[in-house]
């Protein structure tokens, strides 16, 4: 039966994850080996291979800080820096901190202000016992997905020339709340003029119409890295105990209400895309011999629109199901 198969798949995935549950000996990831890091910095194995770094490990603390900061910005983009180290072909992010700049400023201005803050903060951190260096930057795209815009790509290319190893992370706090799972992406750009050997298959995500051009022009200039998370044994223990007090919040959360504006935006964007698809269809009919290629393109655009609308519906159904249906069932006498 379907449900049995679904459960087995879920258990299988779960089992794979529980093997990675940390035990006290794996807290060694928290140890900062200065000599080894300095040596790695000298060797620069990434200089020859643009695809050198393949994985990212983010600590529980860094993730929490980044998501909370991104959400606190509301609809304004926020940015910050990440501290950590490298480990073979993986970049490890141990901590993150926010920078006092807003997305409305141009990037050039932001960097000057941010550097002063960064130097001060790094100094105080080293004094307080956080020895890692800055290893990347993160910023938020509230509501329009995890990808690098044109400005982001040029910033990251600059970073990768002078501040290696460096990583770019994008978080979408609005989609995180509406989908109920963390929307995050980690990217590194290819150097100028480099052609990637094969086309990596990336997960489809819906992009609003006003950003889709920016996305399309630059999407071949960078690649995404795999993200895994880790936590210390004490974190594990505390989070388990936290659940004893937390379950109330899970039941009383209301994703539908919190994200009303975002959902309205999504639906209007979908309407625009439908209109555009309709216009394209009308144009292809006007042409005398409508080449078959255009029709294929048409299909894929309609297919995208169906996928987008399906996603919106799924999220709404989730919200309704969890809040209205289940709670009604429980609390009706």
């Amino acid at each position, binding site marked *: 039966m379907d449900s049995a198969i679904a459960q087995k798949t879920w258990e299988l995935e779960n089992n794979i994850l529980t093997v990675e549950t940390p035990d006290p000996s794996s807290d060694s990831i928290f140890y900062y080996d200065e000599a080894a890091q300095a040596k790695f910095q000298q060797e620069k194995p990434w200089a020859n291979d643009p695809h050198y770094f393949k994985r990212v490990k983010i600590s529980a603390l860094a*993730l929490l800080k980044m998501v909370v900061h991104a959400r606190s910005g509301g609809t304004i983009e926020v940015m910050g820096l990440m501290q950590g180290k490298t480990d073979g072909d993986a970049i490890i992010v141990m901590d993150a901190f926010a920078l006092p700049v807003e997305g409305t400023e141009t990037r050039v201005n932001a960097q000057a202000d941010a550097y002063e803050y960064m130097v001060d903060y790094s100094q*105080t951190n080293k004094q307080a016992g956080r020895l890692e260096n800055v290893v990347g930057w993160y910023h938020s795209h509230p509501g329009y997905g995890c990808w690098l815009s044109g400005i982001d790509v040029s910033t990251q290319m600059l970073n990768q020339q002078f501040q290696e190893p460096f990583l770019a992370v994008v978080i979408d706090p609005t989609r995180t709340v509406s989908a109920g*799972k963390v929307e995050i992406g980690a990217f590194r750009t290819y150097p100028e003029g480099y052609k990637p050997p094969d086309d990596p298959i990336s997960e489809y995500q819906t992009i609003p119409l006003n950003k889709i051009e920016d996305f399309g022009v630059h999407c071949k200039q960078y690649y995404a890295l795999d993200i895994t998370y880790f936590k*210390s044994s004490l974190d594990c223990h505390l*989070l388990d*105990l936290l659940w004893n007090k*937390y*379950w109330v919040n899970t039941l009383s959360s209301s994703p539908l209400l919190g994200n009303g504006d975002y959902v309205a935006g999504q639906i209007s964007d979908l309407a625009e895309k439908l209109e555009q698809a309709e216009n394209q269809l009308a144009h292809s009919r006007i042409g005398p011999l409508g080449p078959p290629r255009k029709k294929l393109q048409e299909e894929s655009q309609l297919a995208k629109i169906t996928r987008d609308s399906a996603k919106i519906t*799924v999220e709404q159904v989730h919200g309704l199901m969890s809040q209205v249906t289940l709670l009604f069932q429980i609390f009706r006498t």
Partner: protein
Amino acid sequence: MASSSSSGLTFKLHPLVIVNISDHYTRVKSQLSLPPSLTSTSSAATSNNNNNNSNGGENNQNPPPRVYGCVIGVQRGRTVEIFNSFELIYDPSTRSLDRSFLEKKQELYKKVFPHFYVLGWYSTGSDAQESDMHFHKALMDINESPLYVLLNPAINPAQKDLPVTIYESELHVIDGVPQLIFVRSSYTIETVEAERISVDHVAHLKPSGGSAATQLAAQLTGIHSAIKMLNSRIRVLHQYLVGMQKGICPFLVIVVQIKFSWNYVNI
């Protein structure tokens, strides 16, 4: 020593603070212990080392280090909400707090979070000690009645409750001498939606990508666990009430506080 507080303030603690303190402690502890080497025998020795530390210290290992830091947040009327925290430099042997560091850090955090201000301090350990009062008094010039958040880092698998206590200071007259002592306060865990999702994500290490099916399964699992908890709590209450009816258990006024957002659900 720890009688319950009478100040009437309600405390709300965000999970970020707990993860912050835990990370600070793990970091300091791992820098102090032996560096992990590549051979498996010495990594086994390291794990023994860590295990011994978490058991409360053998004589030949270092006792678990204490870390100190500041908690920041907002106070609105009678509600105190603790949002974030950062580390501080304190030398327990000389009892000196690095003032310039504290001020520097405060300035930096003010730039990014202009609404937060210093609410108190935190430390790790199993119980509040006399020497902690010294640190507490040092912070009194920044905040007249600071809070003391204590986290117990010992990992005890039999433990059911969160090992975090919040203390306030009160002036009590003991043997005719007015003294400041720590009194325990109760607190609740408060969160914003995004925080809850990321804590959930890390706590259960759910798969992040995936089709709608896994997403649905993940969300339903979360709700299922929450409902299971509700069910078990209600069972306990029910058993107690039955016992009261039979005369086995003493009569108690049970206050049931159902904290759901009822205004969102129109029944």
